[in-house]
């Protein structure tokens, strides 16, 4: 309930700060991956850039920001997992992993503040799952 109300209220300074930090971290790691060259890193950089833009974009993205947040969280976790399994250990990689861990922490904090934690996410997911069924039955 509070999570739903919060989005309609004026954003607080802390919320703006967290959002700015998330976008900054996502763009920073995108830049680092782009500097590494190769198809895989370029695609990874593009993924981070698109999700960073989606985190800031108004309009339809704002209504479904929780999905963007989850996508960025999953994308970052997958990137760290991929590096742990196959990645090279060098200075820039370690710097990038620190940025990605900070990004994950910030996303979790925002997920709690904006979506009300896992229970809030589950509620939104249930609502989303019901939506197409409801519109489909309305059409029928």
């Amino acid at each position, binding site marked *: 309930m509070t999570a739903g109300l919060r989005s309609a209220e004026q954003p607080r300074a802390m919320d703006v*700060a967290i959002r700015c930090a998330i976008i900054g971290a996502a763009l920073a790691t995108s*830049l680092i991956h782009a*500097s590494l060259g*190769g198809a895989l890193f370029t695609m990874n950089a593009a993924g981070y850039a698109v999700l960073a833009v989606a985190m800031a974009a108004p309009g339809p993205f704002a209504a479904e920001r929780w999905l963007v947040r989850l996508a960025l969280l999953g994308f970052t976790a997958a990137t760290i997992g991929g590096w742990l399994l196959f990645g*090279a250990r060098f*200075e820039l990689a370690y710097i990038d992993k620190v*940025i990605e861990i900070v990004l994950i922490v910030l996303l979790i904090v925002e997920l709690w503040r904006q979506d009300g934690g896992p229970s809030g996410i589950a509620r939104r997911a249930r609502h989303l799952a019901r939506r197409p069924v409801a519109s489909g039955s309305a059409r029928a």
Partner: protein
Amino acid sequence: MRRLAARCLAIVGLACLAACSTSAQADGPPPIPASGSASIAADRSTFDRERLDVPADTAFQLLFENREGVLHNVAIVDPANGTTPFVGEIFGGPGWRMYQVPALPGGTYAFRCDVHLEMSGTLVAD
């Protein structure tokens, strides 16, 4: 709000610095490899050869020329046990490094770039 923007800019700036800090300056033209040594180059995220022949049971020099501004290295992997008998320094080009590789027992090894695992080939110590 201004402080926030400054912090965001600082994060991006730090990342830029980090991205640039590992790039080596052009070290001039690479030397001509001595006899018994091997050479390989990387450009457009590809090695210029798929096979390297080196002497067995003898330490050798491996000249690695990185022709692009992307991080690369050469690492030698023993596919029999997955160990890496040699890992070369990762650096951004254009530039070169003369790696000092320890003696390898005779056999077939793999070489690769640790940053771009798709860049690989076969090294034969004979």
